[in-house]
């Protein structure tokens, strides 16, 4: 008897989940994701994804938007943390550095949490001896 009730409950739960999913997919048609449908369709077609249903494309678009938003939020937090650390030293800088800039440093730190390892070149030199020996350069 107990098993039957729990089975019944799980069935209801699954039913709720299915309903929620269906509702969500329907609501997707109202919500326009920032990433355009054509772009998502192009890249999905490139990887072999075949589905004429536009709701699935919207689902993928929303999922990607959420992913980008998460990464950007982490990068923003990194940026703010760095600024607040700097501000502790000098109060003047807080007035200047109100601008939040997405830098490679913050992005690579944020992406590392998601398993993406991005390493950025610190500088580019035009000849092999650049930056090697400052004494010889002065001459």
């Amino acid at each position, binding site marked *: 008897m107990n098993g039957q009730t729990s089975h019944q409950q799980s069935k209801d739960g699954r039913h709720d989940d299915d309903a929620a999913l269906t509702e*969500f997919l329907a609501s997707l048609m109202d919500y326009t994701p920032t990433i355009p449908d054509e772009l998502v369709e192009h890249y999905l077609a490139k990887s072999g994804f075949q589905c004429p249903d536009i709701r699935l494309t919207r689902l*993928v678009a*929303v999922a990607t938007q959420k992913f980008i938003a998460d990464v950007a939020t982490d990068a923003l937090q990194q940026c703010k943390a760095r600024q607040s650390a700097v501000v502790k030293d000098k109060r003047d800088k807080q007035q200047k550095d109100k601008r*939040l*800039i997405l830098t490679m440093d913050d*992005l690579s730190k944020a992406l590392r949490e998601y398993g993406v390892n991005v390493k950025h070149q610190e*500088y580019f030199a035009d000849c092999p001896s650049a930056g090697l020996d400052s004494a010889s350069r002065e001459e």
Partner: protein
Amino acid sequence: MSDGDGRDSLKFLGERENQQWKRKKKKLGADEFAQAIARIAVAQVCEGLGFQSFHQSALDSLADVGVRYIREIGKTACSYANLANRSQCNVFDVIQGLEDLGSIQGFSGASDVSHSLSGSGVVKDLIRYVGQAEEIPFAYLTPVFPVVKQRTLDPSFAQAGESPPDEHIPSWLPKFPEPESYATLSLRNEKDLETEVVNKTQLVEEQHRKVERPLLNFQQKLICNGSEAGVVVEQGDAAKAQRAAESNPFLAPPLQYGEKEVALPVLPPKLLDDPADYHNSCVVTDTNLLTLEPSLRPRETERSAPCEPEDRRNILLNGRPSLQFKFGNGKKSLRMVTSPRNESIEKVSLWFGDDHDGKDKTNRKAEKILWENTEYPPEVSHL
């Protein structure tokens, strides 16, 4: 969007490199349009979160990561669909793909192996995100891309209302191009055609020596086809072809069978009596002739390349001297053989190290002079 510290790196680049870099920028890849749109979309998302500016490289990286995310979802969803024996993807395939990608960060209910997909934590996160995030529509109207160009195919024989020139060509195949359209092309490829013709003339001369008829007939057919191609070239520029033929005999059209009298090789009687202990000469029977001559002829022609073509013709066509080949087991045996056979040899193959009589004597003399002063002259032969 403005570049912060990133622009400083460009100071190191010289002017020349800058121009090259600009030139490189103009070369657009196949995916440039899609990547540009992705960059704009990602920039809009970041702006909505509170970022005021970006580094160009950071934006590019994030857009690239976003594109890869889309492709990864597509790949995993497709593989799950194929696993379930389907070719079209399902919402559950997509959810499973999202779960796979979200397993790095983790989502609620990930550890529950037997959970239903519709109640997955990923879906719940998405619903929550859609509920709370503000809607930022894309800034531009994007057309459907990539645009597939309408190709105008060449008309087939049936479509043009023509009948194919030969029986073996079906009528649904596209038409042959007009001869005028490729006559000019043939001039540019003249060098390739020349080498082809040269090879064919050499082949013909070789096979004229043989006695086998079937091969000859086949070759004749090849020549006919070759001369047809040659005729097409000449139609394009007859004077040039003629001039070329006059100067270079290898560019002349190949000889037809029976046009020129060719003497069969004369076998010296001595060779037929040879015990063939130390050397096997190839010109004993007709069959041997056939097997070894083709290997000989190209090499011979290659070796005597510096000679004038007329001389070669004389050597090959009119009363050729017979050739002997010595295949010895060891160098010493070869040496022993050459001395008694010196009188009967008319021409000896050079690439086994055997020299003519005169050369032998001079070499031995030179050796003698060299080793005069030494106590122990070398015992081994000069070979």
